C-alpha cells in the first residue's frame, strides 16, 4: 500500500532451501520475530529494505499533498490538527528509516535512491490536493487504505518493522478519524462544502483502490513475501476489505461512490466493484502522474537547499570534538 510492487524472490520450496534457510523459515512459521543481528537470507534482507524504504519514502513525500493546505486551513484548530498530522507522517518516516538502518542501509543512501528515481513511493501521493475536502479524503481514504495493510503488518516477522508498525498504527487510526471528521463537516455543511466533498471523493476513490496494487494472485514475488511474513494478505483481499468498510461510510455521508457497477453481493458478503484503470496506475508508477515531477522536485530541492545547513552542523560537531580533545590533552 504505502509499498507497492515490491520486488521479492521467487518462492522456494523446502527442498530448494539450504539448512539455514529451512531453520529460518521454521522460526517464521513458529511466529518468532527476526532481529537485525540474526541470520537471514539475502533476499529477505533486500526485500525488506525495498519495502520499508518505499514505505518511509511514502511517509515523507506524503507530507507534501497535505502540507499544501496547512497555510490555508480554515480554522486555527484545523490548522493545528493538520500540522500535528503532517508532523506525525515525518515521525513515521523517521521510525521506518531507522528500521531500515538495522538492515545495513543508511538514511542518506535511501534518500539518494529516492532522489535518483531508483526507489518509489506510493502512487497515491502523485495526485493533487485541490480543495479543503481533500484533507478529509486523504485521512479517510488514503490513511484508511494504509491502515488495512499496516494493521496486519504489526505481526510481520521482522522485529524492528513490526515495532515501528505498532507505533504508526496508533497514530494512523487517529488520522483516519480526523479525516472522516472533516468529511462529515463538509458533507453535512453548506451546498458548496458538500460539492467539495463529492468532488474530492470522485478524484480519490480510484487512486485509493490503486494503493493496494494490482491483483497479485499469480505473483511469485508475493508468494515468497507472504511465506516470509513480510506481506500478510493479498492485494485483492485488502482491497475488498477496504471497499466493504468504506462504502457504508460514504453512504452515511450522503456521498456517491463514483462507480456505477458498485453493488452488494450477498453470496460473497462483500461489494462487487469496478477495478481502477491499471494503465493509469502504471503511468503514475512510471513517473507520469499529475504531480510526480513536483513531488520529487520538492524533495530534491529540500535536500539540496539543506546541504549547507547539514554541513554547518557537521563542521561544528567536528570542531567541538576537536576542542574537547584538546582540552582533555591539556588537562593531562
Amino acid at each position, binding site marked *: 500500500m504505502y509499498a507497492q510492487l515490491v520486488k521479492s524472490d521467487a518462492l522456494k520450496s523446502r527442498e530448494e532451501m539450504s539448512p539455514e534457510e529451512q531453520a529460518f523459515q521454521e522460526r517464521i512459521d513458529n511466529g518468532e520475530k527476526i532481529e537485525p543481528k540474526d541470520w537471514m537470507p539475502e533476499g529477505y534482507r533486500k526485500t525488506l529494505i525495498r519495502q520499508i524504504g518505499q514505505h518511509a519514502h511514502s511517509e515523507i513525500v506524503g507530507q507534501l499533498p497535505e502540507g499544501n493546505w496547512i*497555510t490555508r486551513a480554515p480554522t486555527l484548530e484545523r490548522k493545528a490538527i493538520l500540522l500535528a498530522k503532517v508532523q506525525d507522517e515525518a515521525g513515521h518516516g523517521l521510525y521506518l528509516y531507522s528500521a531500515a538502518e538495522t538492515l545495513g542501509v543508511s538514511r542518506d543512501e535511501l534518500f539518494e535512491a529516492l532522489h535518483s528515481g531508483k526507489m518509489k513511493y506510493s502512487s497515491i501521493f502523485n495526485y493533487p490536493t485541490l480543495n479543503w475536502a481533500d484533507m478529509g479524503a486523504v485521512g479517510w481514504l488514503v490513511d484508511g487504505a494504509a491502515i488495512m495493510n499496516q494493521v496486519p503488518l504489526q505481526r510481520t516477522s521482522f522485529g524492528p518493522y513490526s515495532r515501528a508498525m505498532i507505533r504508526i498504527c496508533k497514530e494512523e487510526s487517529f488520522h483516519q478519524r480526523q479525516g472522516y471528521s472533516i468529511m462529515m463537516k463538509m458533507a453535512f455543511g453548506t451546498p458548496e462544502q458538500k460539492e467539495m466533498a463529492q468532488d474530492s471523493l470522485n478524484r480519490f476513490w480510484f487512486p485509493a483502490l490503486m494503493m493496494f496494487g494490482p491483483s497479485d494472485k499469480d505473483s511469485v514475488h508475493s508468494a515468497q513475501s507472504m511465506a516470509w511474513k513480510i506481506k500478510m494478505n493479498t492485494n485483492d483481499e485488502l482491497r475488498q476489505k477496504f471497499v466493504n468498510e468504506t462504502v457504508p461510510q460514504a453512504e452515511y455521508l450522503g456521498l456517491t461512490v463514483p462507480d456505477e457497477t458498485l453493488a452488494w453481493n450477498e453470496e460473497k458478503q462483500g461489494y462487487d466493484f469496478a477495478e481502477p484503470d491499471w494503465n493509469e496506475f502504471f503511468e503514475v508508477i512510471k513517473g507520469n502522474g499529475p504531480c510526480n515531477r513536483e513531488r520529487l522536485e520538492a524533495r530534491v530541492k*529540500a535536500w539540496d537547499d539543506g546541504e549547507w545547513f547539514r554541513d554547518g552542523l557537521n563542521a561544528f560537531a567536528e570542531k567541538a570534538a576537536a576542542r574537547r580533545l584538546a582540552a582533555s590533552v591539556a588537562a593531562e
Partner: protein
Amino acid sequence: MSDQIAASGAPQDPFVSDAALKPAFFEWLCRMGDNALVLGHRTSEWCGHGPVLEEDIALANTALDLIGHTQMWLGLAGEVEDEGRDADKLAYLRDAFKFRNVLLVELPKGDMAVTVMREFLFDAYHHLLLSWLAENSNSPRVAEIAAKALKEVSYHLERASDLVVRLGDGTPESHRRMQDALDLLWPYTGEMFEGDALDTAVAEAGIAPQPEDLKADWEASVQEILDEATLKAPETAGFFHKGGKQGRHTEHLGYILAEMQFLQRAYPGASW
C-alpha cells in the same frame, strides 16, 4: 478556545471586564496573538521542506506551539472585546491594517539561516516577556496563558540558540548565511522594545512590562549567543523599521492573509 479556558476554571480576572482599559488591553492581546499567529504561519511553511527530517519535525512542532498560543491570546482578546469575535474570527476576518504583530515575524521565511535567526531574535524577546508576565502580571488570565506558553518558548529559545551557535561557527558558508540573516533582521528588532501609549496603559495597570524595560536583558542574552556563534550585530546607529504594532505592515502580510483567510473569505459563515 476562549470557551475552553472559561470552562476549565479560568481564574477570576477583573481586567477582562474593565471598560476603561478595554481598548488598550484588547489591542495588546492582539499584539501577543498576532505575533504568534504570523510567526507560526511562516514557520509552518517549512513543513515537508526541511533540510533534514528531524528539523522538519521540530519546525512543525514549533509552528504547532505558536498556533496554540494564538488560540489562547486571541481567545482572551475576543472575551475582552466582548463583541462576539472568537480567536478564529480575529485570525481569519481582520484585514492587514488590523493586525498588530511586529514586522520581524512577517518577513518571508528566507533560507534556514533567516528562519533560525529570526526565531532566535524573537524567542529571546518572547521568553523575557512571557517570564515577566507569568511571574508579575496583575492579570491572572494573562499570567496563566504566559505560564503555559513559556514552557514551550523556553524550549524554542534553547533550540534556536543552539542552532545559531552551531551554524555561526560551522562552515564558512553557514557562517556567511547566518551573518547575512543577522544583517537582514537586525533592523527589525528595535520595534519589539519601543512602547507607545497603549503599552503604557497596559503597563500602568500592571498587566505587562514597558517594552523598553526588556531591552537591556535582551541585548545581553543575544550578545552572549552571537559572540559564541562568532557573529556580529550590524551597526544601525539607532535606526529600525517599525509600524507593525500600530497596523502599518510590510507588503508581505497581505499575501499571508490572502492565503490564510481564503476559505473563510470565500465561504462566509460555513462551519469547518
